[in-house]
Structures are given as structure tokens and as C-alpha cells.
């Protein structure tokens, strides 16, 4: 049978035959199980939200954006001249040749006031090249709800929410005014009004004012809940709108593994692959704060749920105390027979370990069951209480996400085990120090 005397006795003392010990052991197991189960569910949902949010962001956000610094204005220091300027075409070619890059495309981006049948709405617009191998266009086209993702001609693709704000339907004409144009026009018109008093001269001067507005046709509508909140136009329209002429505002780079965006951009800067007047911005820079936020909440949760475990451990401690007092005589006999204190402690520790392991396994099973039925549970709760606990407009997701991470599970189980062992150690240590003579006399 058992080769270890301590383990043999531990299992024997757990056996329900003669006494009540089994009931309190069961309750301790239940406590550990609840603690583990809650931790598993909460951690998995948090992790899942993080994973889903990342997927959502990567579904529309370019992995890395390369932006050129504005030209240096004013006095230059002859001893320390500003870096030479590198043309975007040159850099684009260089970027495309790198192995880690899937695609690199010129982008003309800016903010516009868009107008259709309702009041003007401000939005961000990206001008993209309609190339077939453009990975960014490909991933955006996946969110198409109706129409086509066609970047040839005077077209615009908007999300359904933006279209609703504008009051635009497929095929409608949308007028875009770049924000900078609006400012420019205010300035120019005011200058003319200040300087020219004569009506005709004024009209002539007004005729000189160039405005960069575009009329585009709405040809595609994207799902806003997966495609972000941007509008997309052909590159040449973007260049026209934002008065870029032949230039672009940024280069959008798609890489093979988006998780390495930060490493890659760092490497580009370190190895001087990137000219000094260009700087990279990764999707993590833009959305890192939000992900960090979730991580903070997650660690807060860990901290809170640790208390569930601590309270569960007090249960285990109570059980061990009871068992040690119950087995006082037996401990006395064992000590009198020559067992070491270590061995006696091991008896009760292995008992606690058995409780912890069984509790962990049951907790994991319970947690997985709850996770599996999480969306059914939510519907049930919503039906009973009349309140949706996971509204998609707050959490961006239509169903409760979950992502089980083995490392998290291991950490949860380890925490349960360590706390249970610590809780059992204290009474076991005292029990082992009982004077056999006293124990046997009682």
C-alpha cells in the first residue's frame, strides 16, 4: 500500500468512517473550490476582454504608422544642421523590402467636417491607395456591411454609425471640408474684408480663395462596432482635401506579427533604418492606455480575490485544528513510538494539500462550466432582472469574451495550495510539539 507513513495517516484521518471530520473537510474543500472557481472565471473574462479588444483594434488600425517631422523652420544652427529630409517614396520602397513587413502604403489622413442631409459631423478620414496587395485595405474590407470597398473614383466608405449621424444612404453625395481649410478660409475671408472696401475688388479677391472641399459618393458602409470610427477615401482625394499635393501624411505599415510592433519600431530606430526625420507610432502607442487600464483592473481583482482565498484558508485552518485536537492521543502515541515532529507535521500538511488539490480541481471544473455557459447565464440574468450586464456599447463586444490562460490557472491553483499549506502549517506545528506524556495522560 502506501509507502509513506505520513500520507497513509493523512488519508486515513480524512476517512469519514467514525467521525464528523469528513463533513468539515468537505466544507473546506467547498470553500477552496468557490475561491478557485471565482478567480478562474473573473481572470478569464478579463483576459478575454483584453484579447478581444486587441483583435478589434488590430482589425482596423495600421500596425505601425511612420510620420515625417514637419520641416525645420527658423534659424538653423550651422554647427548642428537639421537632419536631411528623406522623400516618402524612397522610404516606402525601403520599407517594402524588409522581411517583417507585409505591406506598406501611403496614407493621406486628416480631420474633416462632413456634410450630407444633416448638420456637419467631424470625423477622421484616411486616404488610401486602391491596390490589391494592400493588407490594410484587405483587413478593412472585411468589415463591409453593404456596398463595396471601392477606392477608385470619388468614393467614400463610412461606418454605419457615421452614416446615420450624417443622414447618408448608399449612393448619397457627401461633402467633405478639411478642418484646416475651414480655418484657412476664415482667415482669408477676414483679411479680404479688412482690406478691400470696394465690392467688385472684394468679389475678385474672394474669387482667388481656393477651398479644398470634395464631393464624394458613399459607396460602402462598414460595421462601426468592428471597424472603428473613420472614413476612407482614395489617396488622391485625401491629398486634395488636406492640400498635400504630391505628399502624404504618413506611411501605414502592416507587419506579420502585430505583437512585435513595439520591438520592430524600436529596432528600426536603433539600426538607423528609419531616417532621422521620420518617427514611428505603433498601434500600442495609440491604444496601450486602454489595455493598461484593463490590466490595472485585473491586478486589482487579483488582490481582491486573494481575500476569498484567505478566507477559504481559514476554513482549512479550522479543519486542521479540529483534526489535530481530535488526534491528540494518536499524536502522543506516534511521538512516543519515536516519530519525528517533521513526520507529524507532514501528516497534517498532506491533509491540507489533499483538500487544496481536490478544491482546485473542483473549482476549475466549476469555473469552466460557468465560463462555458457565460452568455446563457447573462441572458438568464437579463431576463430575470431586466438589465443587461454586458451592454455592447460600453464594452464594444456583443458577447462576454473569455480567454483561458494556462499561466493564470497555474497561478490561481498555486496560490490556493500555498495558502492552504500555510494555514495548516500553524496548527500542525503546534500539534507536533505536544509532550507525549501530557497527551497520553489526558
Amino acid at each position, binding site marked *: 500500500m502506501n509507502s509513506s507513513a505520513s500520507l497513509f495517516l493523512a488519508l486515513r484521518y480524512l476517512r469519514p468512517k467514525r467521525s464528523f471530520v469528513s463533513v468539515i473537510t468537505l*466544507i473546506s474543500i467547498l470553500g477552496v473550490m468557490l475561491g478557485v472557481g471565482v478567480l478562474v472565471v473573473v481572470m478569464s473574462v478579463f483576459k478575454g476582454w483584453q484579447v478581444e479588444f486587441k483583435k478589434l483594434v488590430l482589425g482596423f488600425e495600421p500596425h505601425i504608422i511612420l510620420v515625417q517631422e514637419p520641416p525645420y523652420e527658423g534659424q538653423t544652427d550651422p554647427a548642428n544642421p537639421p537632419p536631411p529630409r528623406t522623400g516618402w517614396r524612397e522610404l516606402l520602397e525601403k520599407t517594402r523590402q524588409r522581411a517583417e513587413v507585409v505591406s506598406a502604403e501611403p496614407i493621406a489622413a486628416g480631420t474633416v467636417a462632413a456634410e450630407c442631409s444633416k448638420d456637419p459631423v467631424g470625423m477622421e478620414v484616411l486616404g488610401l491607395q486602391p491596390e490589391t496587395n494592400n493588407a490594410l485595405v484587405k483587413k478593412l474590407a472585411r468589415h463591409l456591411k453593404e456596398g463595396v470597398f471601392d477606392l477608385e473614383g470619388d468614393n467614400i466608405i463610412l461606418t454605419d454609425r457615421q452614416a446615420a449621424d450624417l443622414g447618408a444612404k448608399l449612393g448619397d453625395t457627401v461633402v467633405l471640408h478639411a478642418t484646416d481649410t475651414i480655418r484657412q478660409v476664415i482667415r482669408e475671408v477676414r483679411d479680404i474684408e479688412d482690406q478691400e472696401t470696394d465690392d467688385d475688388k472684394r468679389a475678385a479677391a474672394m474669387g482667388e480663395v481656393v477651398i479644398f472641399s470634395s464631393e464624394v459618393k458613399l459607396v460602402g458602409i462598414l460595421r462601426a462596432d468592428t471597424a472603428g470610427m473613420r472614413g476612407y477615401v482614395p489617396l488622391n482625394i485625401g491629398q486634395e482635401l488636406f492640400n498635400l499635393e504630391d505628399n502624404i501624411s504618413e506611411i501605414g505599415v502592416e507587419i506579420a506579427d502585430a505583437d512585435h510592433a513595439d520591438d520592430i519600431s524600436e529596432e528600426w530606430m536603433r539600426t538607423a533604418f528609419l531616417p532621422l526625420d521620420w518617427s514611428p507610432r505603433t498601434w500600442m502607442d495609440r491604444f496601450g492606455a486602454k489595455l493598461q487600464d484593463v490590466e490595472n483592473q485585473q491586478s486589482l481583482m487579483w488582490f481582491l480575490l486573494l481575500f476569498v482565498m484567505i478566507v477559504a484558508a*481559514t476554513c482549512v485552518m479550522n479543519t486542521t485544528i479540529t483534526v489535530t485536537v481530535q488526534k491528540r492521543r494518536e499524536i502522543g502515541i506516534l511521538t512516543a513510538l519515536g516519530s519525528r515532529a517533521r513526520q507529524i507535521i507532514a501528516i497534517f500538511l498532506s491533509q491540507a494539500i489533499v483538500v487544496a488539490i481536490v478544491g482546485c480541481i473542483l473549482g476549475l471544473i466549476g469555473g469552466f462550466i460557468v465560463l462555458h455557459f457565460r452568455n446563457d447565464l447573462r441572458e438568464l440574468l437579463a431576463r430575470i432582472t431586466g438589465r443587461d450586464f454586458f451592454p455592447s456599447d460600453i464594452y464594444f463586444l456583443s458577447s462576454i469574451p473569455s480567454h483561458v490562460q494556462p499561466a493564470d490557472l497555474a497561478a490561481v491553483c498555486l496560490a490556493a495550495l500555498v495558502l492552504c499549506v500555510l494555514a495548516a502549517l500553524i496548527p500542525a506545528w503546534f500539534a507536533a510539539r505536544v509532550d507525549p506524556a501530557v497527551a497520553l495522560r489526558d
Partner: protein
Amino acid sequence: MTNSAPLFLALRYMRPKRSFVSVITIVSILGIAVGVLMMIVVRSVMQGFEVDFRNTLIAAEPHALFSAPSAKEGAPPVMADWQKLAAAAKQQPGVLSATPFAGGVVYVEFKGRQTDARIFGLRPHEAAARLDKVRKSLLEGALDLADGTLVIGDSTASQHGLALGDEVDVYPDRSVIDVLHRFRNAQNESDADKKNALLKQIKLKPLKLRIAGVVRDETGGFYSYCSLSTGQEIFRLGDAVSGVAVELAEPEKADVFAKAIATSGAVPAEWKTTLWTSAGEARLAAMGNEQIMMRLILAIIALIAAFSVMNTTITVTTQKRREIGVLTAIGGAPNQITSIFVIQGAIVGALGTLLGLISSFIVLHFRDDIRAALTGLGGGHVNAVDGVFLATIPAQVRADDVALTCVLSLAMCLIAALIPAFFAARLDPAVALRD
């Protein structure tokens, strides 16, 4: 001494003299104390965050806003019967003020640089309730709202380097778009005369306003203020207004007010009603959800703490098997024996709850010191909640919440003790005494 036998026995069985029972009782009490401590501290801090956020919104936003749809290009402003609406609003209970306003988005220009701002044109004497609120975040100048003056947010002021008394140009958002339309029409016109005529119509007269005050944007809600007639002039409303702003004595009941006024029929058709909660709707809903989740998790802590009590009671009843047998044999009724152990559970529950209550108030009192200590240990991650750095942790102790926590914890302890006590009392005395 005590004249109730169950109480006497309950206390006696807890006494540490001969056996270990006292130790497990203490451990149970500690378990409950930790549970109560967590429940009260976490709930209070979360409540504090929500109340803080709500107070910021209440202080910054108009409590209820009825706004007219914006006029179409060229069309005269819509004259709706706002007087009737204002009068009807004043009829409602708890309304401090219902005042007309002229507001919208403007471009503010100073020394060639532009920013946009949301502006509220109000009559100073009528809108006293609203302006009293704004006055709390006034940094410089005055809030008299004389005609031709503007009170601006500090972020705009610092962006432009504006000081009191500076003159800024203000353009309404709408007329800038109109100018753009005219330019487009003129550019599309091939006939030279017609084009000239169109170009002659282009006018963009700014309104020059003097800065009379600066308000803190963080607490003032990113609004600028001017007088009603100045607002009407900016937005070319004539005698019409953009809507009616209402301040309430009890902003928490804004939805009740909105419902009442909607049924009264005084709100003109096509007008939009906006309540202060809508400015932070998503976050308030998220906070509400978090609170419910948290309550669930905290209830599980209480449940596990109750398991501890159950364990203790089971141990005690088994320990006292013989005594229970004797008591039953000499005529102790089952409910008397049950009450011995239930009283024990109640004592454990009461002591644990009390201990948790006291320690939670200590923790809440020293929360900022505790955070400082934790930050020192853990490298600064404790600070950011919702991505916001807060100088102090808010906490709001609500009496009904604390009471609920205590009742819940006591009830769980009683139930936890009742189950084993019930079985113990039904012990056959012959069996118990024979063992």
C-alpha cells in the same frame, strides 16, 4: 448571571479553559471580520468614485436641456414657444430655474489662431442657479455676463495666451459652413456675372468679444459663457433661442422631471431633451455594472466566511455530543439545544462583524496613507484607476450599505450555525451517551 439556559451554555462552550474550541472560534471570527472589512472598504471606495463622478457632472452640466433643432441654411430661425416651456418647467416641483439660452459651437480666433468652443448664452439674473454652479470653477474675472463679453475655459485661454480684457473674434460654426457652401457654389458657376454676384454675398463678420472671465474646464465641463443677447447675435437668432436650460434642486431625479414635462406637452415637437447623466452615460452604466459584479464577489467572500462558522459549529456539536445527550436525557427540548449553538454562531457573527466594521473604518480613514505605502512597495501601479490619477482616493460610506453588509454577514452566520445545530439537537440521547 444569565437566566437563559441556552445562552449560559453557549457562553460556557466558548470558554477557552479546557479545549481548543476557542482557537477555532477566533479563527472564524477573523474570517468574518476579513469578509466584512473587504465588503465595506471596497463598496465605499467604489461608491466614492461614482459619487465623485456624478458630482462633477452635476456641477458642470445643465441638469436638463431642451434644445431646438438647428435652423436650415438661409431659413429664419425657428420660433418655438419657449416661454410656454419655461413656464411649464417652473411649475414642476424642485425646479430652481428654467432659462432660455442661445448656444452652439463657435470658432474663437485670437492673433490668427483658432480653436472651437461650446458656448452658452444666458441671462445672468434668470440663470442665477446655473451661474452659481459655474462660479465655483471661476478662476479669474467675473461672471456678470455683460453684453459683448465672454467667459472662457482655461484650456482655450492658455492655448491662446489670453488674458482678461483681450478681444477675441468669434464665428459661429454654422456661418463658416455657409461661407464654404457659397464658395463652392461660386466656383461651380461658369457665368462670370453670376459668379461675381455670388462672391459679393460672401460675408463672414466676426463678433468681437472681450474676455471677462476664465473658468476651469475640468470642473466647468468645457463650456464658455456669454449673455443671452450676445449669444443670439452670434448665432443670428433674432429673438429666438436655442433652447431652455433647467436647473434642479435634486439632480438625481432629473429623469422624473423629464418624464413629467414630456407628458405635460409643453416641449415643442422635434426638440431634444438632454439630461446631465447623458454626458457620462457609458461610464455611469459601466460603474453600475462593476458595482453589481463586485457585490457578487464580496458575497462569495461572506459565504466562505460562513463556511468557517459552520465548521466551528460542527466541531463544537461533535465535541459536546455527550453533553447534548445528557441534556436531551434530562428533558432539554430540541429547540433549546439548537439555540445553544445558534447563539454561539450569532456571537461569532456579531463579534466578527463588529471587528470588520471597526477595521474597515480604520482602513478607510487611513486609505491615502495605505496607498502611499503600497505605492512605495509595488512601484506605482496602484494609482491608476480608470486611467485617472487621483490625488486622494474617494470614499463614500453609505449607512444603508453598511447595514446591509452587517445583516448579510449575521444572517449567513446564523444559517451556517443552524444547520449543524439542527442535526445535533435531533441526536438520540441513548446513542450519544453510549459512545
